[in-house]
């Protein structure tokens, strides 16, 4: 332990602690910009400077470990002047049109400018001498260089959390900028649209492309029947934007709010998550049968999940040779979309051309996914608009709905019922767990041999997790699986997915089934979730997801009555011709940059 004093107060912290964290312990907040709990230290913005008594120059609190006997001042005159100067320097190159900016009211740079009362600029305004670009080509992301302070959080996110490296620091000195390969648009490069960089950008330089106006237009158009689906992870994140602590489940209030906003049918992506399990589970078993019984050498194993569109785009760019291994199942969002304008329209006697299908997602890659040309199997665009959790919160605020006071409400039907298995799709390991709950029971007729159906080995925050289940005493038709140890691997965060795929590729790891979610923690840590998102908050949301699972009457996808119903009335059986038409898709190899 090291003892030091901060603003005259003594504190003891473990060796290696930064001044920033030591100050936190004493409840002194030091402002930061380039620092982020999820990322390595960069120490480039200097807004966190503190004074060390007797020291020659100011120290960056985020990058300096404490040493014994240090006497630190976090709010001296010198410190205040330096910080203010740093902010003014940043602003001298910053297109500070806050009132028109997407991040207005939720911007770390704006907050600091306010905190330090930056008034009239003392420094020359350089923005007019700069030729900034705004990239609006991506359906998910807008990149506005005029708002960038070059803190490089995005570059570190894309590298350290996602292993994608779509962004780099290009050029130098006054020309330095955050750039893709050859300054191409985000839409043309390996960017997976995961939005993790958006979630960490302290300014308005990286933001989601919003579709709020389009959705309001649809809601206010009397001709249109607007259907909304909500992803599992939204219910454990939305509260944070609306005055709740991280980890509060707001499912019922969210449903009530959506009804007040004027959506005509408030339905649940969890329903189609359950459906995904039926299709994907059957697909896995079919592949295993072809491999083990028919000895068909063309079967691609291990099979990987396909519900995370960031992961799909990643594998299309990075491991195209493994595309046959990806489950052909569409993601729950897109299954839902295809059914909204077919099955739902049919049952509710609506003309699909008057249905507008909106989804609320914790994810910016879902915006891209909905715009993929394949995603029109209903004959229309299956999902018209995708909004993030943050955008939904904004809609609720815009409409003046007092969220905290709402009474809980229930999803509409049909396509509104779900099970705990559908809910846990929102957490890393959840799809695996849901699939195992169903597949094991299909094969053996018994429940998975885990207490309370909780398959804990696939849960957790480890980047790559391995688990296996021994299959015994199978039903007659699955007897070929007797004695087989079903091996599974789970990865979250694309940097871990890359590691996992490299191990599969080298032959070092042999498994049957792989779950990948592009974002750290799974969808609950998605790029469209509330800002900030960090390890602590992800853990809270994870607890909430599993609590929601436990609170559900049904916990296994194949027991969802609406899933049973749709097979009876509409689809036939899993992997039927109709399923293939509406619920399955194919993938495309993409460029290396």
């Amino acid at each position, binding site marked *: 332990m090291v003892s030091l004093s901060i603003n005259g107060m003594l504190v003891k912290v473990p060796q290696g602690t930064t001044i920033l964290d030591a100050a936190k312990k004493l409840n002194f907040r030091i402002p930061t910009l380039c620092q982020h709990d999820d990322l390595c230290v960069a120490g480039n913005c200097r807004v966190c400077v503190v004074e060390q008594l007797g020291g020659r120059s100011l120290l960056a609190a985020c990058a300096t470990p404490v040493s014994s006997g240090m006497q630190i001042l976090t709010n001296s005159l010198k410190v205040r002047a330096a910080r203010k100067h740093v902010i003014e320097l940043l602003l001298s190159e910053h297109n500070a049109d806050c009132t028109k900016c997407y991040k207005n009211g939720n911007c770390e740079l704006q907050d600091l400018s306010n905190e330090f009362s930056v008034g009239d600029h003392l420094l020359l305004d350089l923005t007019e001498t700069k030729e900034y670009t705004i990239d609006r080509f991506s359906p998910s992301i807008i990149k506005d260089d005029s708002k960038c302070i070059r803190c490089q959080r995005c570059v570190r996110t894309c590298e350290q959390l996602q292993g994608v490296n779509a962004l780099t620091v*290009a050029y130098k000195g006054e020309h330095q900028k955050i750039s893709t390969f050859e300054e191409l648009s985000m839409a043309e490069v390996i960017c997976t649209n995961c939005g993790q960089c958006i979630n960490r950008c302290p300014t308005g330089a990286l933001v989601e492309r919003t579709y709020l106006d389009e959705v309001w237009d649809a809601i206010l158009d009397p001709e249109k029947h607007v259907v909304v689906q909500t992803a599992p992870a939204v219910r454990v994140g939305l509260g944070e934007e609306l005055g709740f602590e991280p980890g509060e489940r707001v499912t019922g209030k969210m449903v009530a709010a959506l009804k007040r906003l004027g959506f005509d049918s408030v339905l649940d992506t969890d329903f189609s998550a359950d459906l995904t399990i039926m299709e994907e589970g059957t697909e896995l078993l079919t592949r295993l049968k072809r491999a083990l019984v028919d000895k068909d050498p063309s079967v691609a194993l291990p099979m990987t999940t396909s519900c995370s569109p960031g992961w799909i785009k990643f594998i299309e760019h990075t491991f195209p040779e493994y595309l046959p291994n990806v489950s052909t199942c569409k993601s729950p969002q897109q299954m839902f979309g295809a059914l909204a304008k077919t099955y739902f329209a049919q049952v509710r006697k609506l003309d699909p051309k008057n249905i507008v299908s909106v989804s609320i997602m914790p994810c910016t890659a879902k915006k891209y996914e909905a715009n993929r040309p394949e995603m029109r199997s209903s004959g229309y665009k299956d999902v018209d608009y995708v909004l993030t959790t943050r955008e939904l919160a904004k809609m609720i605020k815009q409409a003046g709905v007092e969220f905290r006071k709402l009474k809980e409400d229930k999803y509409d039907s049909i396509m509104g019922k779900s099970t705990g298995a559908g809910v846990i799709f929102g957490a890393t390991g959840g799809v695996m767990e849901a699939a195992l709950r169903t597949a094991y029971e299909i094969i053996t007729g018994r429940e998975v041999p885990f207490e309370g159906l909780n398959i804990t080995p696939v849960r957790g925050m480890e980047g790559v997790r391995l688990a296996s289940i021994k299959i015994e005493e199978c039903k007659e038709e699955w007897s070929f699986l007797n004695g087989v140890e079903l091996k599974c691997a789970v990865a979250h965060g694309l940097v871990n997915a890359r590691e996992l795929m490299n191990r599969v590729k080298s032959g070092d790891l042999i498994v049957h089934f792989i779950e990948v979610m592009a974002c750290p923690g799974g969808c609950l840590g998605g790029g469209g979730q509330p800002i900030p998102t960090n390890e602590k908050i992800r853990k809270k949301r994870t607890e909430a997801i599993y609590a929601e699972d436990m609170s559900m009457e049904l916990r296994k996808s194949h027991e969802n009555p609406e899933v049973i119903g749709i097979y009876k009335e509409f689809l036939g059986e899993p992997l039927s011709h109709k399923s293939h038409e509406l619920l399955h898709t194919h993938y495309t190899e993409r460029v290396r*940059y």
Partner: protein
Amino acid sequence: METIIENELVRELANKHGRTRESLIPILQDLVVQYRFLSKKDMVDVARELDISAADVFGTATFYTFLDTEVRGKYIIRICKTISCAMKGKNEILSTIEDILKIKLGETSSDRKFSLLEANCIGWCHKAPAMLINDTPYTELTPEKVTEILREYIKIQ
């Protein structure tokens, strides 16, 4: 679909310098020696060969003045833009070259024979103004001297 045509040179250079991150700059330098600039395709091929991202290669290349990412002529003229050369008449030299070659600073002639660029200090302050043509330094330049030098280069087929 991307068709991967083997890039022999890139492969050879990776064999020579290695495939770690530290090999990146030597590989890029050798490519520039060969082609005078880094094409988009070569950068992607280097990225593939080293299993790193193409954006990383681009970021590195754009950081270094001598790792060009735009098509350059056979002879790259780099005029020193630093203060000593500027004070000793660099602008006059520059406009003389522009007049003779009919290209502006930053441009490459249509026959791809000459590119005209600026460089940060090239270490000849004591004999300013100075310029490089490819690797050869020319110093204490005057409009007459530079005209003479260029005339020789123009003659080379």
